[in-house]
């Protein structure tokens, strides 16, 4: 008996919402190949009109940052508030930003 996990590996699904500009991660699923993964993504994640474009990526093809290295990665940014564009006066005509 072949390992079922290998026959249908995990895929990450990204959907571009109808009114959105970019694809967003919505979940994952199992499928044998990219064609079936796209079909399954359509059936699992777009049943309520969620989007108009689908990407699927093999989960194993995603390189992820190491959670145990989160502090060195991200904490140095915490005290550098000057990197946020909050020190400008925004003219009223610009409206909400």
């Amino acid at each position: 008996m072949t390992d079922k996990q290998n026959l249908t590996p995990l895929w990450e699904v990204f959907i571009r919402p109808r009114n959105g500009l970019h694809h967003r991660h919505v979940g994952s699923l199992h499928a044998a190949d990219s064609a079936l993964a796209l079909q399954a993504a359509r059936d699992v994640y777009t049943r309520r009109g969620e989007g108009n474009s689908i990407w699927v990526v093999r989960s194993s093809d995603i390189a992820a940052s190491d959670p145990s290295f989160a502090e060195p990665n991200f904490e140095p940014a915490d005290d550098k508030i000057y990197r946020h564009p909050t020190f400008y006066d925004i003219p009223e005509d610009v409206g909400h930003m």
Partner: protein
Amino acid sequence: MATAATNVPAILEIADDCLILGHRLSEWCGHAPMLEEELALANMGLDLLGQARALYAHAGEIEGKGRGEDDFAFLRRERQYVNCLLVERENRDFAHTMLRQLYFAAFMQPYCRAIAATSSDETLRGIAAKAEKEMAYHLRHAGEWVIRLGDGTEESAARMTDAVTELHRYTGELFADSPARADAIAEGLLPDPEAVRAEWDATIATVFGEAKLEAPEIRVMQKGGREGRHGEEMGHLLAELQFMQRAYPGLEW
């Protein structure tokens, strides 16, 4: 002009195909081989149920006797259902189910396109235009699976070959002329199914080529569904389909 005497039976033939196949797909609920297909099968079943509802409602309006969707779907006797035999065949296994879906969708997609383009009935054109997109997806979904199962493992190939042996003989009825359909064709309500046979043949040949399957030579195609002569399994199907309305007449959600 729509005439009830000929057009209602012709519309019911298509509606019954959709209802019965949709019900068959609903039987997979809770039994599908994986979650992804569980949802896909239910989605496709609901597409077909939606098509059946629209067609029944339209048939009821043309008939003008106050019969609605539920009356057609739940309150007829077995001999009054005029679906083709293919759609009532049992699910058996995933290979049978996907092949049945392929055979049906490969016919219905081009047939719906032809109805949408040529029917004299505006409502029917609208229903068919919507259904064509749904059937295009069913065709692709089922086709991809037939290819992978036919050209897959030893077991999946054997199951797919069994399904072809069992089901191919029921495909002739998709194109067969019933008296109701012949009248509807003459009136311009429906296109001749023969007009889409070449496309059906080409679709099946393409999928079977990739799936390493062979279509068997069938000397005599099975038929009888359009005259209300069904297989034994149809009674069991209707018993479940009709149970709620028979047990609680007039029940509404």
